[in-house]
């Protein structure tokens, strides 16, 4: 689980790249994520909020950051706590 690695949901189509990681288990749709993915886990109704392509997800404490590179039906989470969208202030194009 090191920065730069790509992980996949075992409960939906979601794929994410790890931008920042400190500790804990990364989950999506209620199931642990893995590099292989495709584990066929059932999507948990409590974690079915969906992931959005190109959005960054963080925890409240700022210990983790994921970039969604493939969207899916599951909610990204760390140790059972749903991650939230990282809102960035839009900047004018500068190059």
């Amino acid at each position: 689980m090191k920065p730069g690695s790509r992980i996949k949901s075992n409960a939906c189509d979601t794929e994410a790249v790890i931008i920042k990681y400190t500790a804990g288990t990364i989950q999506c749709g209620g199931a642990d994520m893995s590099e292989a993915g495709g584990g066929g886990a059932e999507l948990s109704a409590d974690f079915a909020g969906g992931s959005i392509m190109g959005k960054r997800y963080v925890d409240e404490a700022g210990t983790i950051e994921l970039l969604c590179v493939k969207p899916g039906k599951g909610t990204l989470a760390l140790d059972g706590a749903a991650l939230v969208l990282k809102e960035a202030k839009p900047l004018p194009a500068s190059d």
Partner: protein
Amino acid sequence: MNIALLLEMAADAAGDRVGLVCDGKRWTYGELIGAARGAAELIADSKAEFVALLDESSEASVIAMFGAALAGVPYCPLNYRLADADLGALLGRIAPALVVGDGERVEKLAGGQGHTVYPRGEFTLAALEAVANPDAVYDAGEGIAIQLFTSGTTAAPKAAILQHSNLVSYILGTVEFGAADEAEAALVSVPPYHIAGIAAIASSIYAQRRIVMLPAFAPDGWLKLVDAEKVTGAFVVPTMLSRIIHAMDKGVHADISSLRSIAYGGGKMPLELIHRALDLFPETGFTNAYGLTETSSTVALLGPDEHRAAHRSDDPRVRARLASVGIPLPTIELEIRDEEGRVLGPNQPGEIYVRGDQVSGQYRERSALDAEGWFPTRDAGYLDEDGYLFLSGRADDVIVRGGENISPGEIEDVVLTHPAIADAAAVAVPSVEWGEAVGLALVVRGGFDHPAEDEIRDLIRSRLRSSRVPETVRFFAALPYNEMGKLLRREVKVMLAG
């Protein structure tokens, strides 16, 4: 994370959308990633340690950049305008490379160095024809993505390196994925070996803003391309903007009403020129970007609203902001420090230091970062009380006269208020008495008589301290600039010594 993922994401989300227009040909994101994967095969087969570009911008430069990234080989676009001896030396520093572009020149200058050469058209064709292995495992992006030789205006070129992580941090921190609507198009006319050219490709692709490439800048061609492709945004260096306005004044006709934004940087923007541009393009949003190769492009910017506010304002403090490079990006830290490394407060001039994930500060030979990860930019400047950053030249350009630091800019700004002076450069000249003294190279405006040297000295004496009065004043037909409009102070020194 590998920078090629930026293109892969655009292709996954909008594979059929046009991402690049060059020489009349249109490339979708799907075609570009396919070609980049083919290029990665060619690169891996060549055993090259670098992928170099010796060519103008084209589809091949985009394919080479992302192909190199997938193959895990640094991409190193070279300045094709360099003299043979200088270019030969740089080719020697990256051998063996897969070189895209001018094969004859590579053969002539570096024939025995083991390079693999593909002329532009052959490279594009070979990349399209190469069969990418569907199970290919591409580079994880933990190493070097880009190597750029600095322009070397003050010394020999340094090999600045950008990690994948630096460039990715910059893009993720400043660009919203897929934020551009279908109509948006960015005109890219900076050379491919400039950081602004690299950043423009990466940020436009991630935003899904169509890139309209102008391989060789000419003002007429620029205006016509804005019209033909309904370009909505462009990055220019100040000299380009000056030449575009000049062409419009001369009556070059083009409908440029689609142009919603112009970003500029890479050199000092004359105040007169930006005021003129704001009047001439009343509906266009201007953005001034300050950045360096070593910082993965922009670290501070002055946005469109701030431009208009400063342009309209009667408050001298607000108006002065037009001469600033704006506010540091929220994703980086920026400090002004004195020569002992102490952090300075508002309005105190010193050296600009930056820190952040996008800041590399690494050269092939050494790291310029300090123990806490701060990068000394060697740019001099100050932050005002509202946090706006003002530049006052390169720290290396400071003239040290008898222990007193003199910024060339303050003298140049005063001299340029003289109606007969079109251009000015103040540099250090050797002085027996002071160690260094001020030398002034001037260009007389067409139609004006030569002002007397003493008239120039009196003007400076009336506005600045006597230490700023030049020891040497000489007139020249023109001052030396590189193709990006950067004044070559090294050469000015030689001219004044001659």
